[in-house]
């Protein structure tokens, strides 16, 4: 609790600093899809150039606030080009005041890894995976608040 409070203060004083975004290839990323505990993990695949992704983003930001007291972790898996990290992604995160974790997945051979996220995924974004040790739910296309909350509650 103390640590949490300290971090909060720290985060506030650090507000002007750029967020640090880890860039990972799929092999490094894959364990994120297989963590077996009772935390519900929500992974939203998005990019700044994807209009529907940007439109639905508030749904994830609100869920991040709403489920703060529950074992729910929201991660935004960014698929912009790595050379746009400094020029587009980081300014976007700052402008929208994005709190959930953002990871940049940089792996050009989508055909190899897209089915490993979900067999039914064509590769179009936005796409959202919700999983816990109770099961996995996947959705391609835009999502609204009710669908996302239903998916989370089913796996809590």
């Amino acid at each position, binding site marked *: 609790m103390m640590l949490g409070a300290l971090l909060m203060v720290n985060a506030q004083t650090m507000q002007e600093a750029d967020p640090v975004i880890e860039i990972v290839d799929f092999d490094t990323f894959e364990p994120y899809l297989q963590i077996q505990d009772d935390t519900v993990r929500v992974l939203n695949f998005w990019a700044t150039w994807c209009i529907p992704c940007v439109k639905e983003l508030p749904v994830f930001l609100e869920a991040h606030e709403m489920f703060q007291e529950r074992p729910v972790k929201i991660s935004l898996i960014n*698929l912009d080009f790595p050379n746009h990290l400094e020029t587009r992604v980081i300014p976007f995160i700052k402008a929208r005041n994005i709190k959930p974790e953002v990871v940049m997945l940089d792996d050009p051979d989508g055909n190899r890894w897209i089915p490993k996220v979900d067999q039914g995924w064509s*590769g179009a974004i936005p796409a959202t995976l919700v999983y816990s040790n109770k099961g996995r739910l996947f959705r391609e296309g835009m999502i609204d608040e009710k669908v996302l909350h239903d998916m989370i509650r089913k796996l809590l």
Partner: protein
Amino acid sequence: MIKNILSLSAFIFLFSMIQAQPGYKVGDKAKDFRLLNVDGKYYSLKDLPEHKGVILIFTCNHCPYSIAYEDRIIDLHKKYAPKGFPVVAINPNDSIVQPQDSYSAMKVRASEKGFPFLYLLDDKQKVYPVYGATRTPHVYLLSKDKKGAYRVAYIGVIDDNYKDAAAVQVRYLENALEAVMQGRVADPSTTRAIGCTIKTQTAGKAKGKENKKSKG
């Protein structure tokens, strides 16, 4: 409870399979169309000079993946048009949603890059849903059968590295072309990729319907 979750995931899985594969599958007969080219004339596939098939690519001006593949698409046309498989590019996007993909912007881009292939506009957005294209670039390799009908021989990506043509290891489309020219079935005949979604003015409404369905 677990059973419920399982059946729900099975349902969502099946639903996402259906969603992910609308339109044509490999082996299907593909419809011809008539669309406006950047030269101001309308073209159909049957108007192409003598050909054995077509490399049909749904692509556009603005999408970073499309831009990354522009030079490779030009090279594909130069290599395979003489072998009977010209490239035909179709921009499926609504230019009100995506002004960089307007007809006048297409003409500018085609002239800047010297596109040697047809660059058509799906201005009524009636062609891409028939094929089932969901993103740009999205390739449909068509091969004429014995009766002269276009058959879908391959659906998917050009290769395994959108970022760097020099680092490509697997040329999925070229492998499919070689297979088709030798009378074999492409393997793999479908591939997936991250891509820009096709832009429509009614996307929001359509998605709303999907949301309802998935709850059921």
